[in-house]
């Protein structure tokens, strides 16, 4: 061996070694043997010569080179491992960011299952997500992702490769286009994956309660795996990954390599376990957000109702104010009015027919009578603004109205007949208002009185309530004239005569009571009032 051989010298020139390229100039002064000389023909020839000369340096050199080679391989393996771990950390970081920023349950689940099944993710063929439904007491199959057969797998994976989408885009695409179809596709599997939480012996519940992942191998012969579960999944190896968030059992991921049958390693399991924490937390947060939304909607709804109630209270206060005002009017107007009218009548009664002032007094009596009529109608109208309903007996209602009007009608020569129906149902009405309406109808001042002074009243149970019919054969007017009377203040006569029927109509309609009036110039007027028998019949 030449002592001055290039590999044996400390320092060499660039031209002396063809193996040292540009950028490797540092090797001209050190570490050349382990890095470059090992594969050099000059070095190999010298080493061979050393061996043939039985030089003790030969085995030492060989050993150094072997050890160096072993260490290099180890370093490469470690670097590769570190690279993988770095990629994995980046991937988890990226997923974590997406999951942490989302409060939409479907988005979270889409991201989670896409990450598990995508080649750029954990690369499992298929994944199922089961959620813990505490209210219903079930671990419930919620979503599945993956192909159902080889054909579908080839098609979908080709598509993914061609589109070259990143994970986030894949997840987005899945959520927007495939979530419901995928749920439908795995509907049968998801149904069968649903297990009662009380079934503590079931492997899914055991894994959930155990809160640690479980790699199930040789499932067909596994004593803890029910045969139906193995048949359902169709694989002998699968991973059960409980989703645990702050010690709460959120759900479970079942992942397998249904198509490729690639073995699931412990490393796969540990990687997925790290991911599962983030997923569990994101699912729980999204679920809580959903619940929060529901509660928020309830609170909003309650707020709306409260506002309506407040408005109602204000309205009622206004109505109470209207009541107080009308009460005040009643006292301040009616009392003086009756005093004027009363004394005028008294004077009229005591004045001789020849008294020239008698005409004036008669005018006072007439005007006060008319004003009293107007006042009655105004007070009745204000009273009609807020009906108070309850269940009442129809016969009592009619008899009260007949009793109140009997004297007046009898004095006018009317004959009134009432035919009560059998087993009449109680009616839900404002008694005062309906009673007023009946009195008004019976005593109404519709023009056109004929010879037949008969009023026939009948009642019967109908489909939508109790039908009350009043036939007044004494009033002979046309339908058009009558309908004119049903419009408030449309009458050409002075106020105080003509509002009665219109007010009745308004009062009844306000209570949701149909009021039908038919007039015939020869037959008279027929009123039909359908009194509701149920609360919901009110409008």
């Amino acid at each position: 061996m030449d002592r001055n051989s290039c590999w044996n010298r400390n320092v060499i020139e660039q031209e002396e070694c063809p193996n040292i390229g540009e950028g490797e100039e540092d090797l001209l002064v050190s570490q050349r043997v382990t890095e470059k000389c090992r594969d050099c023909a000059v070095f190999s020839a010298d080493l061979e010569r050393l061996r043939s000369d039985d030089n003790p340096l030969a085995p030492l050199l060989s050993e150094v080179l072997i050890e160096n080679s072993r260490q290099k391989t180890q370093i490469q393996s470690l670097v590769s491992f570190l690279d993988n771990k770095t990629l994995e950390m980046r991937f988890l970081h990226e997923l974590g960011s997406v999951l942490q920023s989302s409060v939409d349950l479907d988005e979270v689940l889409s991201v989670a299952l896409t990450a598990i099944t995508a080649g750029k993710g954990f690369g499992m063929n298929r994944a199922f997500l089961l959620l813990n439904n505490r209210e219903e007491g079930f671990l419930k199959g919620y979503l599945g992702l993956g192909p159902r057969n080889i054909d579908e797998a080839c098609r979908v994976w080709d598509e993914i490769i061609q589109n070259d989408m990143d994970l986030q885009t894949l997840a987005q695409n899945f959520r927007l286009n495939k979530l419901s179809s995928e749920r439908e596709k795995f509907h049968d599997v998801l149904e069968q994956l649903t297990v009662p939480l009380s079934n503590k012996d079931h492997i899914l519940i055991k894994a959930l309660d155990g809160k640690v992942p479980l790699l199930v191998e040789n499932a067909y012969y596994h004593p803890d795996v029910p045969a139906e579960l193995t048949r359902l999944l169709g694989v002998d190896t699968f991973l059960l990954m409980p989703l645990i968030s702050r010690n709460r059992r959120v759900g479970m991921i079942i992942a397998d390599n249904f198509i490729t049958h690639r073995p699931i390693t412990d490393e796969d399991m540990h990687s997925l376990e790290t991911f599962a924490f983030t997923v569990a937390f994101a699912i729980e947060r999204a679920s809580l957000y959903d619940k929060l939304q529901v509660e928020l909607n309830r609170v909003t709804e309650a707020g709306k109702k409260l506002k309506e109630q407040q408005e109602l209270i204000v309205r009622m206060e206004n109505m109470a104010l209207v009541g107080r005002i009308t009460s005040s009017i009643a006292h301040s107007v009616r009392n003086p009015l009756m005093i004027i009218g009363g004394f005028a009548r008294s004077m009229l009664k005591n004045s001789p027919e020849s008294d020239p002032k008698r005409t004036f007094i008669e005018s006072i009596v007439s005007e006060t009578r008319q004003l009293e009529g107007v006042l009655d109608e105004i007070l009745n109208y204000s009273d009609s603004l807020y009906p108070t309903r309850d269940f009442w007996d129809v016969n009592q209602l009619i008899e009260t109205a007949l009793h109140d009007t009997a004297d007046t009608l009898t004095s006018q020569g009317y004959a009134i007949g009432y035919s009560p129906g059998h087993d009449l149902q109680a009616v839900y009405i404002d008694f005062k208002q309906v009673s007023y309406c009946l009195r008004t109808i019976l005593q109404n001042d519709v023009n056109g009185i004929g010879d037949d002074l008969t009023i026939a009243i009948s009642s019967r149970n109908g489909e939508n309530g109790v039908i009350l019919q009043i036939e007044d054969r004494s009033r002979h007017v046309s339908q058009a004239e009558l309908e004119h009377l049903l419009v408030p203040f449309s009458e050409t006569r002075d106020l105080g005569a003509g509002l009665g029927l219109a007010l009745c109509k308004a009062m009844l309609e306000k209570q949701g009571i149909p009021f039908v009036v038919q007039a015939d110039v020869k037959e008279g007027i027929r009123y039909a009032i359908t009194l509701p028998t149920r609360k919901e019949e009110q409008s």
Partner: protein
Amino acid sequence: MSRLLVVDDEANIRLLYAEELKDEGYEVVTAATSAEAAEKLQGGVFDLAVLDIKLKNESGIELLQKLVKERHDMPVILCSAFSCYKDDFSAWLADGYVVKSGDLTELKQEIARVLAKKAMKVKADV
């Protein structure tokens, strides 16, 4: 001659009732308040009372309840500016109800009807 107690816070109404009802042959005593009515009731027997529902700062309905309790043999007719009380439960204790009007015919008829009813009841009891 039947003796009537008229309770109303309006002096002119008391005067009108007194004049008109005297013309009808009744003996009329008037009172402006519940206290005055109680005083008058202490002083003698009445066949019937005509009460206004709204007395100044008082309720005629309360006075009605008191009279029904203490003087159950004396019928009461409520007379009010409000027709709405006619169908009010609280007014159902009264033997009659009349809406105030310058035309006292209805009041007079009601008084006659209630007194006749009372007379028939007394006769039946005897």
